[in-house]
């Protein structure tokens, strides 16, 4: 893997969350600077900020996209105890010309009395539903009954988990196979409270969510969790970020009677457990087909996990900061202009990708024999310079960093077999 592009996000404070839209053509960023920014990917692959606005009166923890079936809709949650729903409206022509889009607030959900720590849309087959969880231990499920009118949201369910909630994850698989299911994680640090992951299931008869399972083995604070796509299997897979990364397999047990109205009971198995992050793990997330799990932890790394076809899990890749904070000569961070800089960066990085390219096999025959190492030399454009001129300097430092960075690493993240 290589860094193909770096985008100056231009937030005034720490970024807390970045979210891709369903098709991967747009992304939203949110920050402690209380704003959300929306970015669009151009045909050439460059990212442009098309909207930036103040969303909350506190740090914005998470931002997430609704399924495109519901239009261009974002939800955000914040330290200011609220969650909000935003919809993009097709702006006036001069807005379009400037490449800007317009987002308006459709609703503010003010039911929580504490910081809203996570916000997630439910799977689309359930309609347009939004879930929040907050530090006071309540999970709230809202519904927009009329998908054409996003200013009306009704609070459908309130689940009290009794523990400070940090994260929620919907089981993405469709309701035909099983009732809607949501996992809730708590970052309460009191070990005696028992399991920090609770799984709730919707009951058709009572029309309420009932607790189906508590993962009793997870007693340490949980910071994130993620259901994997079901892939048509008979069991569910849940990844949990706590003091380590854990992957659980939840196998629904056969109900005793067909008419039993109680929630499904599960046989819980641990499929894998990794403590490579050394300490707390903060985020876990699956790729589209759940062949890869990524986790981020206190070691400052993102680790990629992959199972081979015999279900052996392994770390196959690490993303890590190169250790250099970006500080320019004036003490100001080196800023690259988002649009102008990134194309230059792109070509340099494409180059970087080549450098990082693996070299496994000696050329077997002349005429290539002579070139065995030739391609590993840096092209002249990358040779270090100590130039004091402001603009070229920032460019150079960046290039130098880049070049001394991931070059010459071998092996892809795919020990598939």
């Amino acid at each position: 893997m290589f860094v193909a592009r770096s985008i100056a996000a231009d937030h005034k404070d720490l970024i807390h969350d970045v979210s891709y839209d369903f098709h991967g053509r747009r992304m939203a960023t949110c920050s402690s600077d209380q704003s959300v920014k929306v970015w669009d990917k151009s045909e050439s692959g460059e990212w442009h900020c098309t909207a930036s606005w103040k969303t909350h009166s506190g740090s914005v923890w998470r931002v997430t996209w609704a399924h495109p079936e519901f239009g261009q809709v974002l939800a955000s949650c914040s330290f200011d105890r609220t969650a909000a729903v935003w919809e993009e409206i097709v702006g006036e022509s001069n807005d379009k010309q400037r490449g800007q889009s317009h987002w308006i607030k459709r609703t503010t959900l003010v039911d929580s009395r504490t910081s809203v720590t996570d916000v997630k849309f439910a799977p689309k087959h359930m309609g347009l539903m939004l879930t929040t969880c907050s530090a006071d231990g309540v999970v709230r499920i809202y519904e927009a009954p009329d998908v054409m009118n996003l200013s009306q949201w009704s609070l459908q369910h309130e689940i009290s988990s009794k523990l400070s909630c940090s994260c929620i994850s919907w089981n993405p698989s469709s309701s035909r196979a099983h009732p809607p299911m949501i996992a809730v994680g708590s970052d309460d640090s009191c070990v005696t409270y028992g399991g920090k992951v609770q799984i709730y299931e919707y009951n058709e008869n009572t029309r309420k969510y009932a607790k189906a399972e508590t993962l009793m083995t997870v007693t340490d604070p949980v910071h994130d969790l993620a259901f994997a796509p079901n892939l048509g299997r008979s069991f569910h897979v849940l990844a949990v970020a706590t003091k380590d990364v854990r992957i659980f397999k939840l196998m629904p047990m056969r109900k005793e009677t067909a008419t039993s109205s109680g929630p499904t009971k599960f046989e819980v198995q641990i499929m894998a457990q990794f403590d490579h992050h050394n300490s707390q793990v903060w985020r876990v997330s699956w790729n589209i087909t759940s062949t890869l799990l990524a986790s981020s932890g206190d070691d400052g790394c993102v680790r990629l996990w992959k199972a081979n076809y015999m279900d052996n899990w392994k770390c196959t890749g690490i993303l890590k900061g190169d250790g250099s904070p970006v500080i320019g000569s004036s003490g100001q961070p080196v800023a690259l202009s988002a649009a102008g800089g990134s194309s230059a960066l792109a070509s340099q990085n494409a180059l970087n990708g080549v450098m990082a390219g693996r070299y496994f096999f000696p050329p077997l025959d002349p005429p290539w024999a002579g070139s065995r190492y030739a391609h590993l030399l840096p092209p002249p454009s990358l040779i270090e310079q100590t130039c004091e001129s402001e603009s070229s300097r920032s460019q150079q430092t960046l290039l130098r960093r880049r070049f001394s960075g991931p070059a010459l690493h071998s092996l892809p993240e795919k020990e598939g077999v």
Partner: protein
Amino acid sequence: MAEVDVDPITTLIPGIDSSQRHLGFVWGPGDLLAYETQYKPTGAQHAAQSCPFVHVVRKDEDIYSPILRKLFNESHHIFVGLQNMKDDVPSKNKKHQYVTHVSKNYRSVIRACMEELQRVAASDIIPRWFECMFIRQVSILLAVELIWNLCEVLFIEAAPAGSLLLHLLDWVRLHKADVDEKAQEVLQSECPAEHQAYWDVTVCYILQGRIDEARQILLKQASQQPAARVTFKLMDSLLMKMPIYNPGGTQTLTEFDVKWRRWHQECDRCLQDNSFASHPHLELICKILVGDEDTLLEQREHLSTWYHFLVTRLLYCHPTVKPTELHYYAQASMDMFLDGRSAPEPLDSILLAAFEFDIHQVIKDCSIALNNWWFVAHLTDLLDHCKLLQSHNLHFGSNLREFLLLEYASGLFTHHSLWQLAVDYFDHCPEFGRVYLELQIERVPLDTERKALKVLRICEQRQMAEQVRSICKIMAKKALRNNRLGSALSWSIRAKDAAFATLISERFLQDYCTHGTFSDLDLIDNLGSAMLLSDRLTFLGKYREFHKLYAEKQFAEAARLLLSLMTAKIAPRSFWMTLLTDALPLLEQKQVIFSADQTYELMHCLEELTTGKVAPETELSMQEDNIEATKIELLRLALARNLALAIVKEGTLEA
């Protein structure tokens, strides 16, 4: 199967100090975004960095190379052909032939691709670093082809003792083609026998077992040295007599073996009685012919690889080697040849695993060492078609194939056009192919209607109802946002989304009320049975039909339709006033269009509409209400007049 443990690769993200900060991330369809963040809720706000970056981290897959795209495209055809094999080829023998043919096709695609890469790399139009990339790719392809060819010989052709060696010789000759170049150079020089590379070429020929060519080139030397004629003659006769196994012939392997041993003894004898002592070059050749290991090892330069050494050694020591004995000779040859000078590279261990007939090890090592899944996925699929994987390991044969194909196809799916190839690969993965396709295809960006239709067709062909619905819904929503009502309507009809169709029909009717005309007439005129999707859509279609009839001056028909829209409650109540207003011109015509009965019904509708009205509250609505009242008065007048005319007319006819 020993686990080859490989350390994960670390990718450095610039400008982030991992000891101070956390690294946030989010998965995209093809890449991963990483950014600096701080998850720990620290009380005091840390010195905020004022310009955080978001980094796009991509897998460095070769799918972005324009030349390798040809490889993917071509091999896709071969792959699909192979999957359809079962039906076409009945006999086992033919099947085997076909699979071998497919294997050769794959290899020729690799070769073509390699040649193209070399050609482009050699031209000066491309930048230097690009050239480096090409050379890297060529070296990988070269290795891939080498491994594939060996696997073809060992696993697919599964040559028995005797012909095994012939195949291995072909394999070495194909991958050590520089001899031919050098030979050309020598033969084209003014005096080949005196060319400095003359003996190199001759020895290389002998090492590769190219006896006829060696004899020919030796003739040139013989004619230059009349004094040594006898010696040359002796060598020539030795070479001529060298037995070569002919698998198609009548000779049995045992007969060949006896003959070969006799020849071998003869060579040995020549060496013992110093027949070539006067001529060091010929003596060297003779030593090679008897398979003297030290002599062969001295030819390291000419052999260049341990596997060439292996094959040459087999040729002159064990020409009837059995497949099961190969691994012993291979390991020994590798040890001897490398002799601790260099550690075995990934390629060496892969080839060794192949010689050991350990298919799984080959596939496993290849998937670790190569940076794309192309090779392992296709080779495994091919071996699976030869039923080789099952026999070797009953437990996970077909799973391995599917696992690798899924990985390869998922990689293709991240590419903006190659994803279409991936569809066929998913189709041929019985266990998870469909689910993977469902998950991947709905993520294909629907940039244009054309692309959406393409994706839709793929889903429709596979009866992926949910994906079809979702795509149509997304497109309908998008069209509505951009105010393209016609497109929105047709997409929601495809999605069979009644609620949305109602909403759009409503918008059409609103537009009509304000502008007095319909847009997207083609669509509305040709709704057909799709009209029945929602009541409002039915009304829209019927109402438009009324306008058509009116324009065609089929007034009676138009009048009947208009009336039925109200009486059958197809028209929403809110629209009745518009319909009644539409009736006005028909009522005012000279000829009577609405019959007396119909007029009664119209009057009934008007009364129904006006009775439920509440008194106006504001001044503005009072003004509006005045207009409304005038309209109603006008209508009543027209209805009364029409009724009178109708009664008179109907009475007259009856009389």
